[in-house]
């Protein structure tokens, strides 16, 4: 739903660029991946782009987002450069973690990305701690803990909700609920709706995670609440995973039918822009082309960057 957002050209265009950057970036991984130039397990964001883009549109570089294993979309939405991310996938020194991290461990302090975790769940608590630090330091800084529906299974989710509520920690819990934990359906891994449970601890917003305007609006309200009250909030976004949990193949689970027209955050926004007369098809195609060139540059940058020096192996430890 787009109510409450005044869809201006500037806003729409900014969001569309980010959505497309993520989508097109990931789509370029697909053909390259089987050639083993990226030796790192990837969890693609395709289909879910609206969530990071809608939320991160409110954030400044010094606002923080903590991520789990599905990193690319959030990292790009938060401002990481494509070259830096691509080079990390290629395992090069110019990667955001100089090749030491891989796809699941991306960081970019200058853009508010303090790192990510391949283990599910634990990073929820990190966001709470970072927000606590912001409060203790009386800093004007927003902090988001981003996680999937599967992560809500974990005890650390419960403990984090309770702690944040008890101690008035100004953090946004952001659930990117794609209805799946690997190949398990949500109803098979969660008996109750964690969004409902969270409601006993803090105010909860829900958004359509395939609609960037819906996400952006709800996130805006949640952030306003956090700022106004100093209390935590949770934003639950139902979205759709198009690809297999890991790797570059399209998902084929019977329980996860994907309609690439109706479920597409990019189509939705483009349609809205077109019908509001805020964009033309030609402009959109041009944007796509621009982004494609940026990705070309990122790939070239990655390919031409040196590999890390094995002599540095046991440093920073």
């Amino acid at each position, binding site marked *: 739903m787009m109510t409450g957002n005044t869809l201006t050209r500037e806003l729409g265009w900014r969001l569309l660029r980010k959505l497309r950057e993520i989508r097109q970036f990931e789509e370029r991984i697909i053909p390259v991946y089987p050639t083993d130039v990226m030796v790192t397990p990837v969890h693609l964001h395709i289909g879910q782009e609206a969530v990071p883009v809608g939320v991160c549109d409110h954030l400044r570089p010094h606002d923080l987002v903590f991520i789990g294993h599905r990193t690319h979309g959030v990292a790009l939405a938060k401002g990481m450069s494509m070259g830096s991310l691509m080079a990390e996938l290629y395992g090069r020194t110019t990667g955001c973690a100089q090749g030491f991290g891989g796809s699941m*461990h991306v960081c970019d302090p200058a853009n508010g990305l303090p790192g990510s*975790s391949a283990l599910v769940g634990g990073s929820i608590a990190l966001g709470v701690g970072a927000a606590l630090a912001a409060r203790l330091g009386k800093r004007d800084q927003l902090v988001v803990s981003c996680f999937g529906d599967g992560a809500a299974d974990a005890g650390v989710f419960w403990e984090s909700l309770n702690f944040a509520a008890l101690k008035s920690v100004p953090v946004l819990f952001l659930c990117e609920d794609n209805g799946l934990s690997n190949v398990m359906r949500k109803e098979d891994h969660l008996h109750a709706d964690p969004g409902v449970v969270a409601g006993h601890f803090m105010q909860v917003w829900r958004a359509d995670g395939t609609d960037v305007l819906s996400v952006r609006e709800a996130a805006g309200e949640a952030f306003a609440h956090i700022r106004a009250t100093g209390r935590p909030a949770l934003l639950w976004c139902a979205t759709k995973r198009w690809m297999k949990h890991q790797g570059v193949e399209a998902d084929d689970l019977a329980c996860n039918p994907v309609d690439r027209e109706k479920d597409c955050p990019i189509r939705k926004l483009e349609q809205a822009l077109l019908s509001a007369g805020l964009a033309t098809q030609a402009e959109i195609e041009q944007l796509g082309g621009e982004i494609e060139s940026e990705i070309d540059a990122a790939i070239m940058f990655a390919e031409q960057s040196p590999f890390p020096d094995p002599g540095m192996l046991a440093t920073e430890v």
Partner: protein
Amino acid sequence: MPWSRFDQSHAAPEGGGRIITFKDAIREAIDQAMIHDPRVFAIGLDADDKFGVFGSMLNLAHPERVIGAPISENAVTGIALGAALNGLRPICIHLRVDFLLVAMDQVVNYIAKWRYMTRGRIKVPIVVRAVIGRGWGCGAQHSQSLGGLFAHIPGLKVVMPSNPYDVKGLFLAAVKDDWPVIFLEHRWLYKNTGSVPEDMYVLPLGKGRIARAGNKLTVVATSLAVIDTLNAVSGANLDVEVIDPRCLKPLDEELILTSVRKTGRLLVVDYDFPACGFAAEVCAVVAEKAAHHLKSPVQRMTFPESPMPASGILEKAYYPNPDSIAARIRAMLDGVC
């Protein structure tokens, strides 16, 4: 369920016989254990999905005794323990050993200690299976081994099999055992093949084997490191004895000491963190009990003192391999290093 009739262990088949993979040997052990004893069941995240724990849980005769679980490793490990305390023989499964760290409270505080705290009035027949092994750019959180960490904790037995014959016999022994067993399977061994009897059999937990006889140097290695060492040694045709203890705990000290007394040299190849680990333990045991037989100082070959990096070139440098093992052995034999 007379597990006692499997007390007689088969000798390792001398080639011939039925050749199957490491993965299928585990699968068969699980299948046979479940058929043989209705108390045996499996539980864990992704234990029941279509991938079947890298194929090791597919086509079981009793799928109704395989229970999938949410991402709740801590509770699920406790649930497995609770089932063991109430008469079942659970196989608790973790697709990566790293996930087991989430359940460390259960493993160290509960599973390892319950039998002792109840003065043996309650048995704890639980097997905790965890898949280990370097990933493929998986990085620091998805590539750990942790065998030494578990072996540090009194009350746990720790098994690290290296070949299809052993994995079946050791797994069945673990299920049969009334003490908790941590069973660590290296993912890179899954496709390896070997001769495996079709019948059920158990190998004693705590008895190692001489994987290759030799006279000039004893190499103690476990799991994938056994295979890599054998490749290193046979490729270079070195006169080296390779000991596969099979279990980090109980440790077959006598086998190791006997070999070192003969060869006078020890190298421990342990694919794990170096400090306070299994390699240190083996060196300490030999230094305590066979020092006078040593012709040169003991040596360890482990991961570097660092987490795992992601990039392929770094991974290559991080992990020991047959070449680097052969080089180290040669250096030791040359007295150079």
